[in-house]
């Protein structure tokens, strides 16, 4: 018994080590979305390109799509824009844009200059849909399945690696088990 007690601190240190080691390399700022498995919240917002066109959650139904949250004020969105163009053009991915807390004129200039990877862009100047979707920064990218249910949320920039390793498997799964 006494022998065992001698090794107790070592045991505690080992357990603590294992627990802490498991946390290394994880990014604590990436939170799991509370919306996974739930439908996209109801909304009624204008199209970025045409203020007279109203969009609602029906836009996100019918096929597996990405919903990409972006703004011209967001430097990382600029970083990922080229990759979104690549996804839309080379991979034929359907991407819906959510222009978040932005200015319409700025956003239109941005798409004009850098290219427009989006099928449709929802204009959300006050961030209401963003808020309902639990967006706490940009860029964020959601995988939405054919019935309009959120399957996955990626916080941060989408690039080739994220696409190959994270988004594509989720999309394939959503296509098969739609």
């Amino acid at each position: 018994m006494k022998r065992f007690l001698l090794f107790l601190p070592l045991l505690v240190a080992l357990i603590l080590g294992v627990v802490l080691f498991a946390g290394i390399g994880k990014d604590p700022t990436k939170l799991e979305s509370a919306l996974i498995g739930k439908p996209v919240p109801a909304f009624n917002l204008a199209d970025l390109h045409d203020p007279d066109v109203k969009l609602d959650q029906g836009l996100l139904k019918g096929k597996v799509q990405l919903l990409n949250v972006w703004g011209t004020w967001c430097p990382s969105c600029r970083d990922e824009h080229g990759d979104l163009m690549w996804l839309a053009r080379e991979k034929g991915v359907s991407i819906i844009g959510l222009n978040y807390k932005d200015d319409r004129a700025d956003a239109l200039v941005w798409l004009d200059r850098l290219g427009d990877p989006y099928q449709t862009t929802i204009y959300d100047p006050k961030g209401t849909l963003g808020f309902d979707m639990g967006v706490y920064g940009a860029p964020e990218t959601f995988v939405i399945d054919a019935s309009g249910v959120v399957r996955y949320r990626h916080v941060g920039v989408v690039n080739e690696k994220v696409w190959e390793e994270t988004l594509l498997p989720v999309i394939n799964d959503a296509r098969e088990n739609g």
Partner: protein
Amino acid sequence: MFRFLPALLFVLFSGAAMAEVADVYEFDSVDEEMRFQNLAEELRCPKCQNQNIADSAAPISKDMRAEVYRMMRGGASNEEIVSALEARFGEFIRYKPKVEKRTILLWATPAIAVIGGLLVVAGVVVRSRRGSSQAPALTAEEKARVEKILAENDQDKSA
């Protein structure tokens, strides 16, 4: 003069940061304002993580404060407000997670630590009492060995 410039800048900018957090809401009573403040302090900012939304200058915290205010004004209970935000941003925003299977260890840890500590103290006390009241008795065999060793020792000295 320029020696004080950094300090002056610091004061200026910290003032600006404070101003950003204190957005203006109107309340009917002090109680209501207290309730708002308490709620804002219980909710964690999803972006900044180590701050509650009352302290944080992040845009998302501002939006969350606005939602808390809006719901409060609409007559929602505290639990309704926290649940509504939890449905969007996840359990993470609760500084006090609900007591359930997954969080029970978190809630029970202080009690476990206290009980563990008490057990250790009790163990030490019991052992020290036992040690002082009863001197360990030697068996007949051990006594014989002791005497033999002592006797040998004496012989060595006299030799």
